[in-house]
């Protein structure tokens, strides 16, 4: 059933043959063949849990295959660890940003290859270079701050900058855009193109199909750990692609637009809002953000990275201490501000960072789902197994969570399935208001559609939904109204017919700059002040330095 495309032109730079890999119980890769040609952008797609990340980890020495070979430029390689893979010229951005939160941005960018003077790390130069490099990716931050003070998006850009800085033969990107918004995606694409120009091959994993068509040359489709198709992406129209991924007949895959939201808006129930937040203020983050969500409507929260959307959500549920601001649920103000209190009042938040704020890694899928609902599933502090299993089974079917069983460790699930588990955790509380921060991040088309349909349905049932998404389409088609944030304050509202991409971007562009910008100008100024010396310096010591950035600069100008 695996159909091969006409003989590859030019022998592959990276080739994987007959690879098998299984984890306790799970057979993640079965006899996988994969060939990557020089200077091509190769899409690797598949449902959640299809084995994409696992394949990548095998190619980069994180996992060792149980069987099969990895060849780089024709030579069979057996990388014992990522270090060796990197040395051999395979540079990787792994799924879920993998950097060191507590270390400074600059440190993260240079880890392992810091510029040195007399054998000692030259901090000054390191910071200069970092500021300069990141600037090109639209991330203008004080690079001496810990990475964790950046939003996920910015962090992902740092990871990207880092990855392309090495002189690599192959650059692998596992869902690099999962938390980028359009403008950054553009930057990313320009980077990829420049890599291509240098004859560097790129493996590109994403669940956003239109991105694939925009940037990729060829595509490999995986399902249940096996390769089901390889070929030029142009020859393959969207529908076919989806059917290959899901392994269902074209016919059964109903075309339902790019997202699964149905066109017509929900019938918002007027009168008392389900959630009303007024004047939320968090030092340096939020300045008097106010919004309300009515039962049965989906309110989108728009803005660029770092606009403070996540902060807003966190502030509402009391996960982030607010200096000022009121939160009312169905007219009743929340006095004690803590996640627990919010949940009791029926307001729940799906956090943006699944790994750190979401899953309880060592607990089973069952325990992760039932976690928040435990009090309701237990009598006199004793958990009723029966009830619990019932709920868990229901939601595992409902959200089609792919796991070897309710007892599988949640950390062993694929990214997407973990996200579904978290959704389940909240849905079994049947809340009044649902705050979703990047709910479809890293979820495959099938699941994504389901989730979106689910959001629709929930709203239909009279639930109030606040939707944060970097995927504009999703935001536009999903929400009835959009509240636009910038630098932590509300700069505009879109409603009814104005809820369009243009509307959003205009609002952002024309939004009044707030005073917070003044110091910024400073840093931007002196940080990008002397690109010249920085460049030379970079050239002088770090051979890796130039290759990456240089071309990027070109097509930035």
């Amino acid at each position: 059933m695996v159909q091969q495309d006409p003989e590859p032109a030019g022998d592959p730079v990276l080739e994987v043959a007959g690879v098998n890999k299984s984890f306790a119980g799970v057979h993640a890769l079965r006899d996988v063949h994969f060939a990557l040609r020089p200077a091509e952008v190769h899409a690797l797609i598949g449902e959640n849990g299809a084995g994409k990340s696992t394949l990548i980890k095998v190619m980069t020495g994180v996992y060792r295959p149980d069987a099969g070979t990895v060849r780089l430029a024709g030579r069979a390689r057996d990388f014992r660890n990522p270090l060796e893979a990197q040395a051999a010229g395979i540079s990787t951005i792994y799924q879920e940003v993998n950097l060191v939160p507590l270390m400074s941005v600059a440190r993260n960018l240079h880890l392992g290859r810091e510029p040195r003077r007399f054998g000692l790390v030259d901090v000054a130069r390191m910071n200069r270079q970092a500021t300069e490099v990141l600037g090109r990716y639209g991330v203008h931050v004080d690079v001496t701050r810990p990475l964790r003070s950046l939003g996920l998006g910015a962090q992902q850009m740092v990871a990207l900058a880092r990855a392309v800085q090495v002189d690599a033969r192959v650059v692998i990107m596992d869902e690099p855009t999962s938390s980028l918004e359009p403008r950054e995606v553009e930057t990313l694409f320009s980077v990829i193109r420049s890599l291509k120009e240098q004859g560097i091959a790129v493996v590109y994993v994403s669940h956003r199909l239109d991105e694939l068509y925009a940037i990729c040359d060829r595509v490999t489709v995986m399902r249940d750990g096996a390769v089901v198709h390889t070929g030029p992406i142009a020859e393959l129209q969207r529908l076919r692609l989806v059917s290959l991924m899901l392994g269902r007949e074209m016919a059964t895959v109903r075309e339902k637009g790019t997202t699964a939201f149905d066109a017509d808006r929900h019938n918002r129930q007027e009168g008392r809002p389900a959630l009303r937040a007024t004047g939320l203020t968090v030092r340096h983050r939020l300045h008097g953000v106010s919004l309300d969500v009515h039962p049965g409507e989906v309110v989108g929260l728009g803005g660029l990275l770092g606009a403070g959307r996540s902060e807003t959500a966190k502030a509402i549920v009391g996960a982030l201490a607010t200096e000022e601001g009121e939160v009312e649920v169905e007219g009743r103000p929340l006095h004690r501000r803590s996640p627990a209190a919010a949940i009791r009042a029926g307001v729940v938040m799906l956090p943006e960072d699944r790994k750190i704020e979401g899953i309880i890694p060592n607990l089973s899928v069952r325990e992760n789902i039932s976690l928040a609902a435990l009090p309701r599933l237990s009598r006199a502090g004793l958990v009723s197994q029966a009830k619990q299993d019932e709920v868990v089974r229901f939601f595992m079917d409902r959200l089609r969570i792919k796991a070897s069983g309710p007892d599988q460790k949640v950390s062993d699930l694929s990214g997407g399935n973990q996200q579904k588990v978290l959704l389940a955790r909240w849905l079994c509380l049947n809340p009044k208001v649902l705050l979703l921060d990047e709910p479809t991040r890293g979820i495959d088309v099938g699941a994504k559609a389901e989730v979106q349909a689910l959001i629709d349905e929930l709203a239909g049932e009279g639930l109030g939904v606040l939707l944060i998404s970097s995927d504009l389409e999703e935001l536009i088609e999903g929400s009835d109204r959009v509240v636009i944030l910038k630098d932590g304050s509300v700069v505009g509202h879109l409603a009814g017919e104005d809820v369009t991409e243009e509307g959003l971007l205009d609002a952002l562009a024309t939004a009044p700059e707030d005073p917070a910008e003044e110091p910024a100008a400073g840093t931007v100024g002196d940080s990008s002040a002397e690109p010249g010396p920085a460049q030379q310096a970079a050239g002088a010591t770090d051979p890796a330095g130039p290759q990456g950035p240089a071309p990027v600069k070109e097509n930035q100008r």
Partner: protein
Amino acid sequence: MTSTAVTTAGAATGTARATLGERIAPQIQRRGALAVLVLVVVIASATSSTFPTWSNISSILGNNAFVWVLALGMTFVIITGGIDLSVGSMYALGGVLGAYGATHGTWLAILLPLAVGAAWGTVQGLLVAKARMAPFIVTLVGLLGLRGLLQAVTDEGATTYLVPRHSHFRSLGAGTWTPVLIVAALFALGALLLTRTRFGATLTAMGGNENAAVLLGLPVARAKVLVYLLSGTLAAAAGALGGARLGSGVTTIGVGYELTAIASVVIGGTLLTGGSGSVSGTVSGVLLLAVIHNLIDHYFSQYGSAFTDTVNGGFLAVVVLMQTLLSRTQQLE
């Protein structure tokens, strides 16, 4: 056009948030102990006439300097997210080996402890890095085992090795300045190692997010082995120098020193969970504890040791509390 608008916006975002609070927070976090230290010293000097005298200060420095080296090694280990409980026992063993070696010449007195410390450190490192065992256990084993070894080499503590009267070895620990200078040098080197070398960066990185460190292609396993080797060697060296100062290998010494070391490191603002910390902080930490002990002795001794203990415990709690509150940042968790 819009693009520029956006980038400036981005810029705004970035640095707007970089203002004051978040800027200094990490600074204070590092300097928290220092602040408390200054406070205590000022008060002490104001209230007591003997405290600021050189002879008192030298008595604090001279006799404790070597013990502080344990905290130096501990800083590295803790920054990697590990812990080394074996240093107290290693300190004692180092002293005994040093004294024993001194009877065969100064060089042996120096090399023997270093060799043993390095060897045992390596073993611990390998168990942690390769066998993936919890540092706490591995070094707990060290704490017990090394004491046993100590008893064995001194046949159950019955024999005491004395450093010969006129061995050069003694001069290494004598007086106030020699110890202080040696230790100061060690700390300076340590600071350099941590902040200005790739090794240092690796340590911090693996402490902050070991998984990422591996994926970023840092030599994590090697760094782990090395850090325990370092800690073990430093502990043994400290013990040996201490032995040189006391003029004999005291077998009962060093009990509970590991805990004091950990306390000073944490008070110094290093996260026990790893990933962030500084040698300078540890310096403040050790000085702070030493000064407090000196004061408590000075003021409370006549009420009996039980009372002094209680006060000591209370003070430790207060200091740690102050430090933690000072280093509290906006961040959730």
